[in-house]
């Protein structure tokens, strides 16, 4: 079974001083899927992400990646294994150029990152690949702009490109469209779709439009526990999900209709 | 024969730190007074003064001194307060064949294991401090001693000297505490001293530590409970800061006191006019030693260090500072020292009227005899 699942969690629990934020969660993420994690605010989605990437230590439970137990591995090691996350708040290196941002990611595979005696020129061979990546998210022309000066949407694109540079097998995206206008949301959806080819994506997202368009499978969390799981149709039809999460907006076509009205 | 056609004196002292008041800017004034009194020139050659703050740091001091002697033609370095500074600077002077006159330092090692043919230690050192105070108190009946020692070389040396003197006189040291330097609060140590039941509580520390310890001893009624307090190194400025009320009755040894005779008083009056305060023994020593130095140049017609030092050694010192003073071959200037006791507020007529001179300790008795010296200049003879 571990062949088809990239990531599994078994009875994952996180307690904060008696408060159970993640309660006995069993996730099975199928290889090649775009998998969404949704749920009301405070359901524990971000906490699950933090557990998967070891920014938090699980209280109990197991995390398997490609069938291997990674529960005790450190953050950085997990990233090198191929589990890479993007952040809810934009995470770039603000005083580097876009190109340098990507190179930092590419460099982690070079094995020369501790070589403090080597000239920086040995990184130039990464430039080609870096430009390719930038081009793929439409940032080629901004390669030499310092990142602080980039607009918000472009920072997100850059972040995604950086994540892609890690050649992740599994990408964890926490609310990739939060705070974006409709136009940017569309762009991000396209980016994610492109990026997902050949890899697996696990994302947290409140924008149901995005979820319905992108995701192959959805897990609904509520109060730390899995409420239900399935494709968008099944999940959105579930009355419990409607009650705790979707409300009347459960049908994305309905809300679009309403807007068009 | 006077190099560069002038005599250049460098005044190096702590101008801004812990030792500022006992030498510091006022020491420079004392030096200037001496040069002015000498007429500003010697054998027709101008006398020039440069000065610098050593910031209590041997680094700063040695780099300044090095520059002075290697680059700026300084002939003699005066002042020299912190022992570490004096030792560091005397190395450089020896290397460059110039002269140093140490007026502020306490360490007796300066003319013992650290002696050089290129410096003179003028005013006092830990040997007479311990010797004068301790032997007097033991003789008065203070048989058992408890010593509070500042935990660094100066304190250790003083403690060792005192212990020797106490034991030699038939007393006993029943406890010592080495306290960190600096210590803001002495209550714990005073309590331990009190608990020891010793007749005498001796302070082998300096400056703020000593004044803090004395204040706390007063607060805890140390002397009321029958113990004697002995401060081994106390400058006039410290006592002035404490005031007669807090410091009354304390016995101490000093190399000079401004009110001890008419000459001293006259000079101290002039000094006070310039500075607004009474001089410490260091201030007086700077004035006196500079006069001796300039006189020696005048007599020999040379500012070459060895010639001058020899001339100074050959000339006995009798002036406002010293009676029966003489400079030995190890560089130690030996002179009479004085056992003083701080006056009571009732006895004291003004804020600087602080000491009663109890006893004059003759020069030969006060300082470490040459027979005990480890100075190669002495032993190799």
């Amino acid at each position, binding site marked *: 079974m571990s062949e088809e699942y990239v990531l599994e969690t078994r009875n994952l629990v996180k307690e904060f001083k008696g408060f159970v934020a993640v309660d006995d969660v069993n996730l099975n993420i199928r290889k090649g899927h775009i998998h969404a994690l949704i749920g009301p605010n405070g359901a524990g989605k971000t906490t699950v992400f933090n557990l998967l*990437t070891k920014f938090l230590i699980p209280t109990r439970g197991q995390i398997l990646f490609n069938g291997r137990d990674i529960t005790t591995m450190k953050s*950085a*090691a997990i990233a090198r294994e191929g589990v890479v*996350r993007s*952040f809810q708040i934009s*995470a*770039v*290196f*603000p*005083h*580097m150029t876009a190109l*340098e941002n990507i*190179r*930092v990611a590419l*460099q*982690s595979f*070079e094995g020369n*990152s*501790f070589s*403090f*005696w*080597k000239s*920086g020129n040995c*990184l*130039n061979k990464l*430039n*080609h690949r870096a*430009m390719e990546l*930038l081009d793929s998210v439409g940032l080629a*022309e901004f*390669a*030499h702009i310092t990142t602080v000066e980039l607009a918000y949407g472009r920072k997100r694109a850059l972040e995604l490109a950086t994540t892609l540079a*890690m050649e992740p097998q599994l990408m964890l995206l926490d609310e990739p469209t939060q705070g974006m206008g409709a136009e940017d949301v569309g762009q991000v959806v396209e980016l994610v779709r492109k990026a997902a080819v050949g890899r697996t994506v696990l994302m947290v997202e409140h924008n149901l439009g995005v979820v319905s368009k992108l995701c192959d499978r959805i897990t609904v969390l509520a109060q730390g526990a899995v409420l239900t799981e399935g494709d968008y149709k099944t999940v959105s039809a579930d009355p419990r999900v409607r009650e705790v999460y979707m409300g009347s907006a459960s049908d994305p076509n309905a809300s679009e209709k309403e807007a068009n009205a | 024969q006077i190099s560069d056609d002038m005599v250049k004196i460098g005044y190096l002292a702590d*101008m*801004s730190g812990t030792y500022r008041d006992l030498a510091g*800017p006022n020491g420079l004034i004392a030096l200037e007074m001496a040069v002015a009194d000498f007429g500003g020139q010697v054998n027709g050659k101008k006398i020039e003064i*440069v*000065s*610098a*703050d050593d*910031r*209590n*740091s*041997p*680094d*700063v001091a*040695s*780099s300044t001194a*090095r*520059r002075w002697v290697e680059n700026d033609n300084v002939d003699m370095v005066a002042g020299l307060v912190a*022992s*570490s500074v004096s*030792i*560091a600077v005397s*190395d450089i002077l020896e290397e460059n064949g110039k002269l140093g006159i140490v007026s502020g330092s306490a*360490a007796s090692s300066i003319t013992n294991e650290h002696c050089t043919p290129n410096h003179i230690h003028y005013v006092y050192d830990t040997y007479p401090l311990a010797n004068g105070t301790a032997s007097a108190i033991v003789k008065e009946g203070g048989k058992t001693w408890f010593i509070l020692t500042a*935990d660094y*070389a*100066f304190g250790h040396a003083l403690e060792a000297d005192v212990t020797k003197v106490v034991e030699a006189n038939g007393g006993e040291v029943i406890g010592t505490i080495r306290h960190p*330097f600096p210590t803001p609060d002495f209550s714990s140590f005073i309590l331990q001293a009190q608990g020891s039941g010793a007749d005498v509580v001796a302070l082998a520390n300096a400056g703020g530590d000593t004044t803090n310890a004395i204040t706390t001893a007063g607060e805890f009624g140390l002397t009321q409970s029958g113990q004697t307090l002995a401060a081994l190194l106390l400058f006039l400025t410290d006592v002035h800061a404490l005031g007669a009320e807090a410091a009354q009755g304390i016995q101490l040894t000093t190399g000079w006191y401004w009110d001890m005779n008419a000459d001293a008083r006259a000079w101290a009056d002039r000094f006070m006019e310039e500075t607004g305060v009474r001089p410490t023994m260091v201030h007086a020593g700077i004035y006196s030693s500079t006069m001796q130095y300039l006189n020696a140049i005048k007599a020999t017609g040379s500012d070459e260090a060895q010639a001058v030092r020899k001339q100074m050694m050959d000339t006995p010192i009798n002036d406002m500072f010293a009676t029966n003073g003489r400079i030995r071959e190890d560089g130690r200037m030996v002179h009479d020292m004085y056992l003083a006791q701080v006056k009571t507020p009732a006895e004291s007529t003004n804020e600087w009227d602080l000491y009663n001179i109890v006893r004059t300790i003759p020069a030969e008795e006060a300082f470490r005899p040459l027979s005990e010296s480890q100075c190669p200049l002495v032993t190799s003879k």
Partner: protein
Amino acid sequence: MSDSVNPADIHKTMLDQQKSEHRRRLILNLVLLALLIVAPMVMYPVFLMKILCFALFAVAFNLLLGFTGLLSFGHAAFLASGAYTTGYLLTTFSGLSTELGIIAGTLVATLLGLGFALVAIRRQGIYFAMITLALSQLVFFFFVQSSFTGGEDGLHGIPRGQFLGLIDLNDNLNMYYFVLAVFLAGYLLVQRIVGSPYGQVLKAIKQNEPRAISLGYNVNRYKIIAFVISAGLAGLAGSMKTVVFQLASLNDAHWHMSGEVILMTLLGGTGTLLGPVVGAAFVVNLEYQLSQGPLADWVDAILGAIFVLTVLMFQSGIVGQVQKFMKKNIG
């Protein structure tokens, strides 16, 4: 801004830019080097050596503050441990050649740096500063208590000896060129580090640590290495200083020294290569000038005022300010 940008073109212009900047920097460095070589002919060499030693110290410190984003308030400990080790070895084992003493001092400081780093690295920002301060206070206590340091008298009369048994370092000029060579080696090493692949990661960590972690970097390892190198170079500076002045004292270990190196770096410009050098030269010279003049007893107050003014008015430091000015006016 069209969509038809060719990545290769952009790439080429960037390389050109980089080249011209390299050339400019090379020229600047050569000019400075020439100045340093002739300097002892016009200035007092020992004073220049003092500046070079402190400059090396500040450069080492800046590797941490400026390029890794860690404020150490305990760098005096490394300066002093280098100084004491070298001083102790050279006085105790007479005939030990000077460079061995210096290497030993550097090594001890490096090891001490490793110890500090292992304890402090888990904390960030102000906590990091405070832990390094506490550790350096413990080191200070150790130096006060140990007999081999000579307590507050310090070690003195340390022989300068000979370099490789050949060149007599008692001659100020020989000594100067030796110090200059060591300084340059240290400076170039830091320059190299900053530009190296490793330096790139440091930069990334400084700017966004969580992101660097998520890209697979074990940031603590990187920080520890930076700290250790910085400590080693600081120790080297201390060792050199000991040989130049032939003494080692508690002053080097006092926390004020840690404050002073911050001032030098900040004043010259953190995060620039040349900044700490300029800052060190400025501060050392200023302290000298002030201590000689009528303002001798105002040194502390004046240094304090400079601290305040630097923080308030030009945080990018002298070099940073000049760079800004150049950018504006030259483009």
